[in-house]
């Protein structure tokens, strides 16, 4: 694992990728920091960071796109999988290298609150917990990007898919507000979702009976619930979509609430996608 970590890190910095990542991230954070904190004299650094989350849409696909797909394309994965290194070790090595590339510019941003402090009184706890939350959101996005990169052999496709997924997640709170709060709209939304699940099941298993039965049973459960207790559908779709909004986990931290549940949410989401990556790599060796 250490060997892979070192190799990855070296390859990020022997090319320009690592430097571009750091420079772009620091540039954008610097602009927001100047505009919000320095120009307007607002003492909360977290406020600037919350405006910066969109950089992940650009930076994460660029840095993660080659992470897994390139190995597969150039067949260098043959070396790794035939040497005494586990798949878990390989994926973790790569993920930690990504995190390191991300952590280095973040370490520099840790100086910004100190700059602010020289001009007046600020809350260090709020500033640094915001930086932590921003970092964790980035970790989740990097894990998502790595997972998508493991699905394909083409780095370009991986980058586009990662962008689409992160963009959808970025807009998800906006999408949620399109739905009406009433139970009927939630019910219809779930009904469509169940249909999509059944279709996906059919595509994956090629078993018509299984997908039809699963689809019908789930729709029946939904219908029964809707008829007997319609109130549970009130606003449900907003809640569900809201739960998928990764960047929203930052809000509490920025407002000065150290919310442990959000911390657990971000950490487990990152772990989940690292786990998915491991599974997707393992699966490919069995197909």
């Amino acid at each position, binding site marked *: 694992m*250490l*060997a*892979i970590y*070192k*190799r990855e890190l*070296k*390859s990020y910095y*022997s*090319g320009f990728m690592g430097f571009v990542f750091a420079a772009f991230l620091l540039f954008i954070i610097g602009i927001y920091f100047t505009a919000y904190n320095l120009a307007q004299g607002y003492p909360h650094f977290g406020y600037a960071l919350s405006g910066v989350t969109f950089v992940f849409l650009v930076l994460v696909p660029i840095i993660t796109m080659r992470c897994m797909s390139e190995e597969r394309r*150039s*067949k*260098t*994965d*043959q*070396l*790794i*999988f*035939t*040497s*005494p*290194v*586990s798949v878990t070790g390989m994926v973790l090595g790569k993920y930690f290298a990504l995190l390191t590339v991300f952590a280095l510019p973040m370490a520099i941003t840790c100086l910004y609150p100190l700059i602010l402090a020289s001009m007046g009184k600020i809350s260090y706890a709020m500033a640094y917990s915001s930086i932590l939350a921003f970092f964790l959101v980035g970790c989740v996005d990097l894990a998502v990007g790595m997972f998508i990169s493991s699905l394909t052999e083409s780095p370009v496709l991986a980058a586009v898919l990662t962008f689409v997924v992160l963009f959808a997640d970025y807009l998800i709170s906006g999408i949620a507000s399109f739905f009406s709060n009433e139970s009927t709209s939630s019910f219809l939304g779930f009904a469509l979702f169940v249909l999509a699940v059944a279709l996906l099941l059919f595509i994956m298993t090629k078993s018509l009976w299984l997908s039809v039965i699963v689809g019908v049973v789930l729709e029946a459960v939904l219908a029964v619930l809707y008829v007997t207790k319609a109130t549970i559908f009130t606003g449900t779709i907003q809640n569900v979509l809201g739960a998928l909004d990764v960047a929203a986990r930052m809000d509490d931290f920025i407002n000065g609430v150290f919310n442990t549940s959000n911390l657990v949410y971000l950490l487990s989401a990152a772990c989940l996608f690292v786990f998915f990556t491991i599974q997707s790599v393992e699966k490919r*060796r*069995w*197909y």
Partner: protein
Amino acid sequence: MIEVTNLVKRYGNHTAVDRLSFTVEDGQIYGFLGPNGAGKSTTMNIMTGYIAATEGQVLINGHDILEEPAEAKKCIGYLPELPPLYMDMTVREYLKFVAELKKLPKKEHADHIAEVMETVKITDMADRLIKNLSKGYRQRVGLAQAIIGYPEIIILDEPTVGLDPKQIIEIRDLIRSLGKKHTVILSSHILSEVSAVCDQIMIISKGKLVANDTPEKLSEMASGTTDIHLEIKGDRERVKAAIKSCGFIDYIEVNSYQKDTGCGVYTVHVQENQDIREEIFYKMADIKAPILEMSISRKSLEDVFLELTKDEAVSRSEKKAKRTANGAENETASEDEAGTDETSGDEAGADETSGDKAGTDEAAREEDE
């Protein structure tokens, strides 16, 4: 030691490897031979743990490649078809990375890498980026990668592809010297390469093992079927009778005969590795039929390979049927030479028994499968 039992790999409906079983003993050089798409690379990929088999088991020194991958993979060095090189690293960096991957003691890295680079003659290239190396040097770096840590078993998938003739000879010598201390398995579709280097040859066709023997034994399988090609001017029947009287003749084919000039082209199938060219010369001199051309072709490993990798049993039995038909034709063609016919009939009988033997071998193999 590698034990492979009942290996099956299916890609959808396509069976790439079909119930392959063999054992690789220590300290020998094994050659995997087969036409393109025979399943050589797939088998090697499964043996090294890169992909998993659909069915069957691979034991490396008693460790199952799927159950105890770390132990099993420590014993193996693998050079895949395409050397797994990182283009953005220098040769030295790359080999250091491989040494770390293989968990060699850190202190030995520098010395060991220097030694390996010396062995495959890439010391001059040590600090160049791999993307700037030629195909031959890349192949050598790949080879260096496989022998780093001196694993007990070295598996090489087409190690000489893309090299110039001089490099091929060097790599072969290298493989031979590696074979003194390690078990080497190499794959190739080039016959001369395998027969030059290997102690044991495994021929694979359509995912099945069709032969597993030493090169000498495999060539012996082809013995008894030397062909002599002749162009002789003279009456067809007289020439045939004269040739038959030489003995050791399996049967004679008349490829072409021109009535006006009396020139005929004959192929004489001779039993066992008998060289009867001299006798033919004198016989023809006796009947005053000048030999315009004569050449001999012994069945080589190549013919065995071609025969084994064809549509196997079907084509073989077809060939046998064709041969007996030919024999019958020859017999009717030379009724007057009853005596020689008898001998040729005997020979044909002997041929049939050997053919039968091959047939039973085949049947036994099929039963094994």
